[in-house]
């Protein structure tokens, strides 16, 4: 019985460590993507959003990351909460970020705006 309890404890601790590491990795990814977005524009006309600073990105959730079959591009689907100022309002957006492999590492090729809605 004691052995069983010990084994369970070890398994739980391992799972917790792994999920914490995954969460840390996710958080690091989120921060990295936020920085990568700055300077890029998605959408067009009234729906244009140029990421001018990390502070405009109030929330970023990674919904999916995958590589293309040829390994030359990495596609991230993200959900965003964006706000430039109190006057201009808050927006919920979903975007597809396409990274291309370059000599200097992964660089954003373009950001496709999938959906946009004013929420406040």
């Amino acid at each position, binding site marked *: 019985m004691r052995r069983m309890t010990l084994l369970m404890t070890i398994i739980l601790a391992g799972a917790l460590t792994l999920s914490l590491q995954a969460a840390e990795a996710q958080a690091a990814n989120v921060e990295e993507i936020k920085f990568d977005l700055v300077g890029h524009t998605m959408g067009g006309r009234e729906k244009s959003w140029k990421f001018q600073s990390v502070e405009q990105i109030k929330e970023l959730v990674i919904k999916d990351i995958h590589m293309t079959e040829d390994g030359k591009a990495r596609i991230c689907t993200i959900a965003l909460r964006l706000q430039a*100022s109190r006057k201009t309002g808050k927006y919920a957006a979903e975007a597809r970020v396409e990274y291309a492999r370059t000599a200097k590492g992964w660089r954003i090729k373009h950001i496709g705006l999938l959906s946009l809605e004013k929420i406040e």
Partner: protein
Amino acid sequence: MNPKRVVGALLLSLLLCGCERKQPELGEPLANLTPEQRAQFQEGKTVFQRVFVPEDGLGPLFNSVSCAECHEHPVLGGAGDEVEVHATRFVAPDDCDPLFQEGGPVIQQDATPLLRARGIEKEQIPASATQQARRSTPPLFGFGLVDAIPQATILSHEDPDDANRDGIFGRANRAIDGRVGRFGRKAAVATLFDFNAGAFPDEQGVTTPLSPVENTIDGKPLPPETDPAPDPEITVEDIEKVTAFTNFLAPPPPQRFKKREDRTLAKRGQKLFIELKCAVCHVPEMKTGPSPIKPLNRKTVALYSDLLLHDMGPDLADICLNLAHPSEFRTELLMGLRVREQFLHDGSAATVREAIERHGGEASRSRDGFKALSDKDKEALLKFLQSI
């Protein structure tokens, strides 16, 4: 006078005459572009004229099959007689929703045969819209120069609290991301590139890498098998090419009247334009900022606008857009006014005179001043407007 000096002066004047470049005609590129930039202008012109069909990206909902279908009068890049429909939701005092998720603010008025076969002939006004608007097609001449005006220059004309007590306010609109707006009748778009990037999906239903999914139909996804072209339907390079075309499209050359009496009349009109305070909003000139493109670098552009929002009164009010209230409009650019055939933001005025007489709000005093002018002075003011 010393004969040597006379000869020198003559030679100098001959040299100056020879150096003076002919001003580009309507539809031509800016003078002094490099050969590479001229080639970009031509490439962009080709994309601007490209006629889309459903198989290569048109629709399923759309307003026009090409940029050139609307921007055509009197030459490519000019105005058009098409009037489109926009709709948004406004809740006083300040809440404006462009209704992106319901298909706003541009409501497409046409559909491809595959969509029509499903009984959908156009997009409907969103159910939650509170206002709708009609929008005419503006000429694009000189827009590259407008794009190159620094934000600070636009903001320097703001007078949101009417500090000088002239009854004219003026405030900048902002794009949703906070940048100063300047393009569109409500100045809700910050740059020419942004405008062009959105014109493809909004006007032609053509997806781009920046807008890679088709617009919804009244907020709902497209019915299956109504969009035969794979997304995105054009490249970012295509948007850049069209932006080069619009960026390098020269402003209209000033009209030089041949008859002396016309010139005198226009000069009198110019004076009245200032006296009636039309020029407070229709600012005659602004200067572009530093640009790597020589003909856009620190140039004076005779746009006749402050690019700011002004209250035009309840009779002209339509939709809100970002910070712009329903009755607020960006001061219309008068650059190229003489090539237009319909006036005001919705093309509802048949003449310039009618457009002036329908100004309201902050422009009421100037409008009343115009109405009080003698017939001869009215003629003079209208003659001046024909020259710009």
